[in-house]
């Protein structure tokens, strides 16, 4: 019996890091967009930097999804 501990460890590491990174990025994007929404207290509202940042986050996530599709196809 030959258990490939290295492969298991790398699956663990890669999954952990990429899940947390992706969820973190996507959350930042969502937060950036949420800041564009005016609040009841008069906060929020259009904010160019936040919007650009949000789109950058989403672009990175989209790239990750594209890479995922690439992994499935190839």
């Amino acid at each position, binding site marked *: 019996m030959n258990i*490939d501990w290295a492969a298991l460890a790398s699956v663990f590491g890669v*999954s*952990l890091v990429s899940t947390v990174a992706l969820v973190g990025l996507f959350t930042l994007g969502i*937060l950036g967009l949420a800041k564009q*929404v005016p609040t009841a207290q008069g*906060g929020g509202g259009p904010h160019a930097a936040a919007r650009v940042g949000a789109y950058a986050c989403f672009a990175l996530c989209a790239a990750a*999804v594209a890479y995922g599709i690439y992994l499935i196809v190839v």
Partner: protein
Amino acid sequence: MEHITLLLAIVVVTALVFDFTNGFHDTANAMATTISTGALKPKTAVAMSAVLNLVGAFLSVEVAKTISGGIINEDGLRTEVIFAALVGAILWNLLTWLVGLPSSSSHALFGGLIGAAVMSAGWSSIDGGTVVTKVLLPAIAAPLVAGVAALLATKLTYRLNRKVTDEAQLKSTAKGYRAGQIASAGLVSLAHGTNDAQKTMGIITLALVTGGVLAPGSNPPVWVIASAGIAIALGTYLGGWRIIRTMGSGLTDLRPPQGFAAQTSAATVILASSHLGFSLSTTQSCSGAVMGAGLGRKGGVVRWSTATRMFVAWGLTLPAAGLIGAGAEFLTKQGPWGVAVVAVVLVAGSGAIWLLSRRKPVDHTNVNEPAGVVTTAIASVSPPPVGTTVTTDLKTTIHAPAEPQTDPARPATV
């Protein structure tokens, strides 16, 4: 084609039936959390998953060379053995669906193959070490890896958006989480179509090779690829609502951020594991991710009684499918009448399980209700008032992103 014998035809049909059960057994993996958080309506979710499964089946040409991944010795395997293995896998898949427990279809297939091969050629046809590395270890690793990833991701996302308290902004974030969840669920569906439909293609091809129709080492013919893809897509569209209910709202109560974290973790684990050489079960990764996300939210709880039943089902999958497979192989060994008996048992058993399931039907209308609350009274033949109530509840659920902090997927009463 003209050389296809009756036995071979039966095996091909049985393999497609297995593919179909595989589809509806595993809809939950991609779509359970998407449905329970209200990201997609139940019917839309299964339709999307079905299409992606179909696309996935055609995507990859890299066919699994061995259906069992080296667990059994496939040289000289008789066609009847494949048939017996499929019978074991199908019946176990249907039984676990009846009780609404997610369990790995691949493990059911492995179990059936092991049981049938042992009955056919003795214990020497099994590689025990491979069973441990391909089945037992992944069964423990998958939920742990996916669970820990989902747990940390859930904690992170709740921490990042803890300052958002305004109603309108919360609405905006909930919408974002749902969109992200749909993307992750799509990836899981696509990966499932590629992996699992190919498994069936591999079985049919192997059966055709053992039956002497195809030369050894052939690629699956186009009709095999198309029929396997269609069977898994139809199964997915039918939707294993019982399992969706368990995974989407039975294990824990999921809110949009948790659903997103769970589905992303599942997608990542499945893709990472299949490309780093340590294949993990889709079902077990998804269940683990759901539980991890459940624990990650402050105040979140995992219903350990349901989880325990699921773990028991995982443990039983291999031996139970193996026993049925061995029994089926014992009969098919007796000659053509044995094959006929097994075919009759398969049809009768599937029919009985389906009839039992009609006593307490679960479908797209009541999939988000807490399991166990559906009483026999409600379950009696399609009572219109209950149906209407449920539909209204569902509508409120789906159209109420205004309160993402309340659990949207849970009608208070039935």
